[in-house]
């Protein structure tokens, strides 16, 4: 599985690093850093928790083939 974290959306809430500490961490600026962009399938559940909890929709799991944003993005993709 491939994961991405969009630092321009991150609000440093920290859920990702708690949910999946081997996949996400935070930089000196408090914002998300991806430690492992292609975690093994055994991490899928924790990465899904991170994607679900991220309040600013910064985390995405790239599902095989299509690029899938978080299920609940909720609004047209016009966020700057």
């Amino acid at each position: 599985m491939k994961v991405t974290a969009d630092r321009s959306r991150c609000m440093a809430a920290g859920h990702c690093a708690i949910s999946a500490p081997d996949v996400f961490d935070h930089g000196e600026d408090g914002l998300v850093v991806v430690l492992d962009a292609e975690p093994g399938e055994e991490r899928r559940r924790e990465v899904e928790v991170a994607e679900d909890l991220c309040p600013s929709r910064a985390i995405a799991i790239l599902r095989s083939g299509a690029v899938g944003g978080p299920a609940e993005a909720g609004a047209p993709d016009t966020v700057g």
Partner: protein
Amino acid sequence: MNAPSTTANEDLFAYPQDRACPWQPSPGYQDLGRQGPLHRVRLWDGRWIWMVTGHSQARRLLADPRMSADRSRDDFPSVLPRLDAPIFKPIAIIGFDPPVHDVHRRLLAPDFSLKQVRAMRPHVEDLARRLVADMLREGPPVDLVEAYALPIPSMVISELLGVPYDDHEFFEAKTVGLLQAKSAEDAERAGRELWDYLDGLITRKEHEPGGAGVLSRLASEVDEDGDLTREDLLRIALALLIGGHDTTSQMIALGVVTLLEHPDQLAALRADPGVLPAAVDELLRLVSITDVSGVRVATEDIEIDGEVIRAGEGVLVSSSMTNRDSGVFPRPYEFDVHRTRGGNAASGRQHLTFGFGIHQCLGQNLARMELEVAFSILFEGIPDLRLGVPLEALPTRSGGTMQGVHTMPIEW
């Protein structure tokens, strides 16, 4: 559009309503929640707004960039009279939309990060132990709010910001004055006193650069033509000072009440200290101390669940009710520290007590740490702690949204 004070509005559910139990939403909200996820409710000024009680609808709306948090807009709903005070209109970070919101929030992110909070923990533990020792020395009865629940977050935020703790009686009283004011005039008066105080403090920091705390650092970054003006800094200081201690202190107090009234859960927590982080999130979910996850105004028509929220209409997300959406939390009215047993380390964080979307609480990691420390050290130091008055006799706050107790007598 949102016509003021029509007869139709008079038939609507009047918001807010007081709780009957310190950790459960008002009985009226519970009735509403059973009727569906979205409701029209009437405010004090005769206007109506949407009240959201469904969890997925709340998350969708709070993450939607078409919802504005800009309190200076004419159509922004004022949920309580005090929110009409001019001082609240451009409240920093929480009351701004992107791009200004994101710029100011990122300026503060390093100071509130998980790493920073973890580094502060031993210091907060020492503080809590000192306060417990003082209470034991003084002997029962003690007011837990004054002796413990308030000093912890108050000292932590004053050290973090670089506000002298010696001034705590002043800034605590003015914060309560601001947050519990029954009129815009009273709120404005308390707010201006805090503003003038912070103005003087920041002037001192400008003259003595290199001091400790967030405000000293930011004072050196002020640039009238850049991202942080002096007025921005003052507004940020005010937001952090008032946001940082009242919520957390009342959560400590009502959290202790909830644990004392559920001896089986307190025993489960005592039996396994590893449960502490999950117990804190369960208490945050149940108590929903602010009762509200966020207030917004729609800037465009938004379709949701077969309803249309029109541009200009206000939306209030109820944390106490979205936190009881049975689709997300089975047996939602029950307090269960083992609720997420077997789940991921973060799976107890689905509650909306800290809001959702880009405004989700900046201080949440700090608050969680303070709560973990406060509960564990209190019950370790005073194992036979009990309420000094019957539950029904606790002097609880009323007439607003922010929950809490004026005092909380305890004995042992």
